[in-house]
């Protein structure tokens, strides 16, 4: 399929917007060609996942765009960097690596992006309207903006999100189009007890199951209570985008493109139906724990992937009140939410219990956890999935209440009755 460009897009390629925009347009057009997109679509906003240091090559790319006079053409938020800029010294980089990580964050800002430094830009006021075409990176943010807000983006890789922001264009295929947003798979969770489906700890596990089952397919999920809040949906999407390539899910009766199953399916028959039975759910939960079964050792607890919201901090503060943690307890969030909880007077009680708040980054993308790798307990499906490879820590998965109880006891305490 040949790619048809508008006159304005061809002009950008030929340098009308300067050399950075031309380079960005070459990359966007190449991405469109290799995905078989017939055209580009104009986007309203971008979320950029290229500001996390993975090596010098990414720094050189961002700095090249700055040198060439690059500037984002649409409102663009920034994902986490590799440094906690508000708490210098929290991330244990050697000076050289820290310097490169800082250069990447500086170059991203110099391109005109907002220094939000969060993987949950939807908690920092970046909330595109239903049906808006956008260009987002960061897998959990993509799942959220598509599924929960009903805006439209593909799962953009690092670099492409930034190039889309500079050109205000994205390859028009996949999740930009009605047909690809239709559910092909139905996951029926209605057979699980309602009590289980109302637990916070259910959603990361549901997501982990969904990602493994769906791969990159769009699923419609039956059995999610209609009053399920955004924090649970974000946990579901983040886990599904970790164990699979899920960019969009529909929770029937909850998310905006799925008022009913028939709507989510676009009036067609599903290609596949899966019934989520208790044993499948428990197996998905158990896969989130890599620490030796039967051992109750923990060395640290981490929450906040995706970044903790204000309401999650309120829940943590309520659970932690009057307790003293025996192991390091990290809560990762964005600076916007930090300001919000500071105003709400939550910082002192959280600190008293032993909660260390990590801002602008998180414990699986930067060396923050204790240097001796051990066992990390978490309520996040995404942390549970990525921590073993990225940090060397083995994982134990539990609810937020389990995490607080375990941090207080200094050993794993889990309420197994939740899963029966």
């Amino acid at each position, binding site marked *: 399929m040949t790619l048809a460009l508008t006159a304005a897009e061809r002009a950008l390629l030929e340098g009308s917007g300067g050399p950075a925009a031309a380079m960005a347009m070459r990359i966007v057009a190449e*991405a469109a060609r290799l995905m078989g997109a017939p055209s580009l679509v104009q986007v309203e906003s971008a979320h950029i996942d290229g500001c996390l240091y993975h090596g010098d090559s990414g720094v050189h790319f961002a700095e090249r765009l700055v040198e060439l006079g690059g500037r984002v053409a649409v409102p663009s938020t920034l994902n986490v960097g590799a440094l906690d800029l508000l708490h210098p010294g929290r991330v244990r980089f050697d000076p050289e690596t820290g310097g490169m990580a800082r250069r990447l964050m500086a170059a991203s800002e110099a391109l005109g992006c907002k220094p939000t430094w969060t993987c949950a830009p939807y908690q920092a006021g970046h909330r595109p309207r239903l049906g808006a075409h956008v260009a987002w990176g960061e897998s959990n943010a993509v799942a959220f903006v598509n599924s929960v807000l009903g805006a439209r983006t593909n799962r953009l890789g690092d670099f*492409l999100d930034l190039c889309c922001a500079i050109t205000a264009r994205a390859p028009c295929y996949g999740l930009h189009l009605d047909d690809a947003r239709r559910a092909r798979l139905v996951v029926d969770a209605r057979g699980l007890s309602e009590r289980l489906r109302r637990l916070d700890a259910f959603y990361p596990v549901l997501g982990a199951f969904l990602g493994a089952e769906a791969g990159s397919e769009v699923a419609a999920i039956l059995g999610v209570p209609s009053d399920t809040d955004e924090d649970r949906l974000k946990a579901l999407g983040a886990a599904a985008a970790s164990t699979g390539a899920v960019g969009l899910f529909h929770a029937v009766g909850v998310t905006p493109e799925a008022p009913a199953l028939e709507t989510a399916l676009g009036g067609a028959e599903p290609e596949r139906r899966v019934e989520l039975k208790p044993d499948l759910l428990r197996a998905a939960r158990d896969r989130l724990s890599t620490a030796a079964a039967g051992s109750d050792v923990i060395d640290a607890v981490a929450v906040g992937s995706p970044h903790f919201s204000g309401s999650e901090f309120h829940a943590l503060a309520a659970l932690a009140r009057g307790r003293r943690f025996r192991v390091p307890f990290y809560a990762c969030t964005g600076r916007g939410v930090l300001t919000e909880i500071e105003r709400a007077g939550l910082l002192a009680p959280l600190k008293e219990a032993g909660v260390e708040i990590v801002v602008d980054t998180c414990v699986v993308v930067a060396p923050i956890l204790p240097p001796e790798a051990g066992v990390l307990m978490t309520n996040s499906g995404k942390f549970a999935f990525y921590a073993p*490879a990225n940090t060397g820590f083995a994982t134990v998965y539990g609810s937020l209440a389990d995490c607080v109880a375990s941090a207080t006891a200094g050993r794993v305490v889990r309420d197994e009755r939740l899963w029966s």
Partner: protein
Amino acid sequence: MVLKGRVLVAGSAEGPLLRMTAPLSFWGGVDPKTGRISDPRHPQHGLAIGGTVLALPEPRGSSSSSAVMLELIARGLAPAALLLGEADAILALGIVVAGEMGHPTLPALEVAELERLPEGRVRVDIDGSIRAG
């Protein structure tokens, strides 16, 4: 036997076939400093992907995999060629950006029947044909 793939990034290369037996996310799954599979849960944990003709039946995981691909290329640790079960804008894009930055690139193909690939050395040609090397 010759298989034909759809060319995502054109090029020719040769190397030993390394077929992933489980989905692999480059970010969180491949160490950009060593080119080895670093996810301890992956059945091929510890294998080096550098210089191989890497066959990935399904894409998975983080959008930062583009950055890991670019870094592997910049360090000379990238696969010789990439064969994807379905086209994926994330890994192939890392190769496109590497080309823009003046690094050598590698061929990437979308191949419908990865399971039919011959074992052992494999050659990928610029027209997208794949044969025993």
